[in-house]
């Protein structure tokens, strides 16, 4: 800065440089400020924050939803168990009597159908089922896998009161206004029921610990991908009556769990993890306003849990965060993934960089432009004023800057003062000249007088008595200082009156001294005294 101050740049150049430095400082301070308050975070951080929020919401949604479904399933199981145990014909050890007993099966289904349809209407799921450990005909092929029961199914996109009968007695369904599904079958098949053996094995657990989520599978004859929240139905004596629970289809989940999202294209998935490999459960959703095709196949996650990771599967890649969640006591923890397409992430990062660079460029451009513009605008009247002063034309037109006008006024006053001084000087010169002339005239007169005095002295020298003169010279040395002073005044041509004024004494005193002087100098008159004094002076000069 000191160096800058000492450079011999023009005022305009210096001002521009100062202004640019000021602009840079302001821009730096601005960015420092917005960085500190977090208003200009990197795209990565913004996306991380947004996905953290989405994850929190999705995690709560999943936790609440499956908790509620588990409670309903346990309640359903308990309810059916109570119903069976209330009928001595089929309760406990008599339950095996249900097999090959179409009339009893129809009776049981007719009771359960109304209850199940009612429960389905009031629960947020796509289907409900009860699979009893019995079959209507143990003699048919594959009867070992066949199980009687009821399976009611909503339109997979809608949770309304319109439902169809996927498994169960068709005539019973129709009489209850529940039409058979297009791919209806009379009974379940345990070999097509995902994780059936695991669900059965849970019968040994306490009721409230026996629920689990099955792996997803496609319902036979449809494209509906579903998972069951399944609970074993167990009697008070530990008799296994069957399995019941709720169905959540992939389409239902997508429709009813669409997340409110800040991100344009959000994908949320529930994944299961087996042998370090993530597998889609089929339950996935998007943001409410946009749909993103979920990842398929085995899913790879590379990154730190809780931080942005690359999540890829099939031909798609996403950037998002994953988090473990425990949904049931009988499933390994699931993994929640909340993510956006990698292309969206890349675009956001590039956009952020471009915006930053553009903003800096614009700020710099506008700063420099403004510096140039304003310095020019600011200095031009000053420079113009200086030009006026330089060419002494400042009085021709006023400046738009008051300070310059003040300077002009100051200069005008100075000019006026200078003129007055010059006039006084001229007058003084005239007076001096006149005085000089007078002085010269007086000097001439003095010289003339002295010449006359000399001539007179020389002419009177012969009239002087040498003895008197010698006495005079001796007497001079005897004069007192006062007398000597008075003598000098006489020699200077002063009168008695003038000498009295000069010495501050009375005339009579002067006259007293005169008598003493005359006596000591042996003269009788002032004329004689002055003559002897002139001769003495002339002799001293010679």
């Amino acid at each position, binding site marked *: 800065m000191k160096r800058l101050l000492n450079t011999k740049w023009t005022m305009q150049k210096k001002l521009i440089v100062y202004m640019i430095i000021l602009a840079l400082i302001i821009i730096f301070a601005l960015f420092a400020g917005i960085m500190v308050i977090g208003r200009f975070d990197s795209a990565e951080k913004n996306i991380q924050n947004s996905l953290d929020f989405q994850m929190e919401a999705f995690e709560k949604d999943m936790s609440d939803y499956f908790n509620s479904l588990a409670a309903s399933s346990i309640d359903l199981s308990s309810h059916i168990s109570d119903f069976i145990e209330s009928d001595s014909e089929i309760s406990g050890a008599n339950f095996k009597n249900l097999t090959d007993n*179409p009339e009893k099966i129809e009776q049981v289904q007719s009771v359960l159908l109304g209850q199940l349809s009612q429960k389905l209407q009031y629960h947020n799921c796509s289907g409900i089922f009860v699979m009893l450990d019995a*079959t*209507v*005909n143990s003699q*048919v092929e594959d*009867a070992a896998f*066949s199980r009687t029961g009821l399976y009611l199914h909503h*339109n*997979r*996109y*809608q949770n*309304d009161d*319109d439902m*169809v009968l996927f498994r169960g*007695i*068709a*005539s019973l369904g*129709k009489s209850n206004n529940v*039409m*058979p*599904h*297009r*791919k*209806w*079958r*009379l*009974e379940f098949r345990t070999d097509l029921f995902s994780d059936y053996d695991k669900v059965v094995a849970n019968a040994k657990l306490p009721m409230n610990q026996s629920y689990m989520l099955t792996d997803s599978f496609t319902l036979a*004859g*449809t*494209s509906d991908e579903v998972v069951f929240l399944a609970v074993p139905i167990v009697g008070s004596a530990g008799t296994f009556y069957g399995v019941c629970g709720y169905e959540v289809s992939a*389409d239902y989940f997508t*429709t009813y769990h669409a997340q409110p999202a800040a991100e*344009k*294209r959000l994908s949320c998935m529930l994944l299961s993890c087996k042998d370090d490999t993530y597998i889609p459960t089929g339950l996935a959703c998007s943001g409410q*306003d*946009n*749909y*993103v*095709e979920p990842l398929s196949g085995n899913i790879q996650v590379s990154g730190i849990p809780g931080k942005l990771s690359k999540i890829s599967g099939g031909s798609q890649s996403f950037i998002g965060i994953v988090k473990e969640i425990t949904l049931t006591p009988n499933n390994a923890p699931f993994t929640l993934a909340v993510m956006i397409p990698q*292309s969206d992430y890349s*675009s956001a990062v590039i956009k952020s960089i*471009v915006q930053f660079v*553009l903003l800096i460029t*614009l700020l710099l*451009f506008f700063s420099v*432009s403004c510096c*140039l*513009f304003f310095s020019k605008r600011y200095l031009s009247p000053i420079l113009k004023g200086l030009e006026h002063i330089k060419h002494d034309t400042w009085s021709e037109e006023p400046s738009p800057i008051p300070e310059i006008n003040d300077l002009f006024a100051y200069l005008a006053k100075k000019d006026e003062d200078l003129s007055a001084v010059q006039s006084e000087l001229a007058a003084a010169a005239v007076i001096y000249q006149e005085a000089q002339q007078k002085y010269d005239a007086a000097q001439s007169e003095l010289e003339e007088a002295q010449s006359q005095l000399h001539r007179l002295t020389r002419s009177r020298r012969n009239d002087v008595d040498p003895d008197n003169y010698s006495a005079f010279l001796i007497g001079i040395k005897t004069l007192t200082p006062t007398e000597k002073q008075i003598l000098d005044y006489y020699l200077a041509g002063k009168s008695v009156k003038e000498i009295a004024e000069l010495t501050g004494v009375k005339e009579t005193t002067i006259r007293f001294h005169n008598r003493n002087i005359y006596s000591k100098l042996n003269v009788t008159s002032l004329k004689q005294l002055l003559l002897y004094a002139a001769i003495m002076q002339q002799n001293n000069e010679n």
Partner: protein
Amino acid sequence: MKKIFLCLLALVILFSCMTGCSDDSKLNPKKPVTLSMWHIYGEQTDSPLNQLVQEFNATVGKEKGIVIKVTNMMTTPDLKNQLLAAKEGAPGAPSMPDLFSSRPDTVLNLGAENLVDFNDYFSEEELSQYVQEFVNDGTIDGHLAVFPVSRSTRALFINDSLFYRFAKDTGVSYEMLDTWEGFFEVAAKYYEWSGGKSFCAFDYLIQNVEYDMLASGHEPVYNDADWYDTSDPNLKASWMKFAVPLAKGHIVVSDKYANTQIMTGEVAAGVGSSAAINYYNDTVTYPDNTSEKMNLKVLPLPKTGSGEQFMPVTGTGFSAYKTTEAKAEAAAIFLRWLTEGERNLDFVVESGYMPVHDSAFEAIDGYEFPSPAHKELFSAVKTMRKEYTLTIRPEFTNYYNYVEALYPALKKLCPALQERADSGEDAALLAEETWDLFLEISKGGD
């Protein structure tokens, strides 16, 4: 100063170029537009259209910035009802979809002005390659509001395993099903053979009555209420032809769709949409859980007399709800893609429909069908195309209100009539009761 202004201008232009490089298209691959879709193709089953939607999203959609999301699949009447509820903003109704299956009567209800006019997105040359009857049928008030993607017809579906045993015991044959007279004769024999089971369930009974009128040489007369003029004696004559076997229980009005009654063994045959082909199970399951292969047989609709026969052309097209230009453009791109040559053929064959391009009809001959049942169906369709006249019936706003009132009322009435017929009452008189019911319904279906 001038230099600064020019720099600023250049900067603004540069910024504009960076933020909005675009052509006429309103679509942007970086900001895909999502179209919600409701359709009727394969509800409850594995939908061929859903598979095509996935293919579109992964290819053209990805390239152009379009994501189609199927958010509802249901039957045509249900879809129409839900559309109307959505448009009215009824409590609990879902949001209006961007793209949906629709019929001309749906458009009349929704208002053509609220739907995208596909004339704005397809050139005349493009549209000339579609079957003109389909294009004309979808044009309402000058708007091409229902874009043709497929059309269905009606056919006779039969459980061949059951029919084989029945034919073997009674000597009937499929040839007898060529005409309605033979059909009703077979139905009567089946009723007797099966111990009182109906032979066939009808999905759209009133349409069979209407086509019988046409084939008998009588154009149906409609009244101002969008329903039939019941004073027309030809209407009653055709009605009674079906009403007598209906009263006897030889035939029934289907519970909803005939295929569910065939797969439970309740009936041996069904008359329904060609699109039902995807809904048939491979097997029939009886109440004792025994089952057998169905071996689905598909035959043309029985003929009326020996005159000109008419092939029903029914089904829906696609309409797009008018929202943004980008969505309208996206809908047009998807529909163009869906109806392109081979793809449209694959789609219609898989889903049991007829193609919408003239040339595609000929291509069906050499097509490799996904199942013997599909081959049966398209053989029947081919026969009808050859021997029958393609006919699209006019659509009216309130027509389906009458239909939806008629079928449940008949289903409620017929079991009692069947009992009375079995007990010896005159079937012709019982059939008159169905006509009385028809008249009753005709008084106020709206």
